């Protein structure tokens, strides 16, 4: 990384590689295509939207590894980060 890159916060190619790999491995490991992930995401938005207003743009779901105490290993977990815009609105309907 030269000084110019550092000043303009340009990502080094190794960081780009790492980020791309992490993403592609998530779907590889889950044996789950990006299309299916997109469908899950849309369904989640639909269900949650029944009860509260959420930020659909900011919603992030991914399959990650979760460390467990038992079974000496990691288990895959579906991780969803769903920003709520308004709670009250949906509760009484």
């Amino acid at each position, binding site marked *: 990384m030269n000084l110019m890159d550092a000043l303009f916060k340009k990502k*080094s*190619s*190794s*960081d780009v*590689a*790492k980020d791309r*790999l992490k993403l*592609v*491995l998530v779907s590889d490991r889950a044996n789950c295509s990006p299309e299916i992930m997109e469908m899950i995401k849309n369904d989640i938005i639909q269900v949650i939207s029944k009860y509260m207003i959420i930020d659909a743009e900011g919603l992030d779901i991914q399959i990650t590894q979760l460390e467990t105490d038992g079974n000496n290993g990691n288990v895959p977990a579906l991780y969803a980060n769903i920003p709520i815009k308004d709670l009250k609105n949906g509760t009484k309907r």
Partner: protein
Amino acid sequence: MSEVIVITSGKGGVGKTTTTANVGTGLAKLNKKVVLIDTDIGLRNLDVVMGLENRIVYNLVDVVEGNCRVKQALIKDKRYPNLYLLPSAQTRDKTAVSPEQMKKLTDELREEFDYILLDCPAGIEQGFKNAIAGADRALVITTPEVSAIRDADRIIGLLEANELKRCDLIVNRIRVDMVKRGEMMSIDDVVEILSINLIGAVPDDENIVISSNQGEPLVGSDTQAGQAYMNICKRVMGEDVPLLNLGGKDSFWSKLSSIFKKGN
């Protein structure tokens, strides 16, 4: 107690054969009785890397099909008293051998040898299944490139599904200058992504090319790669050897200690 170790990577050309040759030779140098088996049927290579290509009479398929006894097919490496090679067949294909036959063969060799090293073909098809059938543990080779790491991840998944007892990672062809510039993933990056135990890292060293040109593994020689491979051998045997400093951070202390080491 003998161990059957498969050397595998998924992707081709990342250094499986070179690693098999060097780790095998290194273990023999450390007074272990070692046999190397080339399981890449149809694309035989381990013999030329070892410099034993002129001594082949029988091969793996001959043994499995019962055309000869195992002892007849084993080539003794005259440079080391404990090192043998079982070459692959060049004119057959992977379907000539089954996983059950490989398991039977490795179990037979256990009685005679401390370490049985299997050089796995690239890919995840029959050749891979044959190679891992009889293995206790695996050395997974990768380079710091996206394609090799992705394939390694897939291989690790398949090895775990096949219940191998142990799976260790070797990161090959590291270029320290590129890592420093941020243009190549570091050893830590690769280990973080694959999350398995690292057993060694080998720098990109032109001496590797020279050694395979000559058919003489460079393990243990006074080169970076030679030292890295020797350290891997010791770790395979269970010794606790610190990682080579591949010029990562030249701290004052590491420079000082390297001066003292040269003095010894």
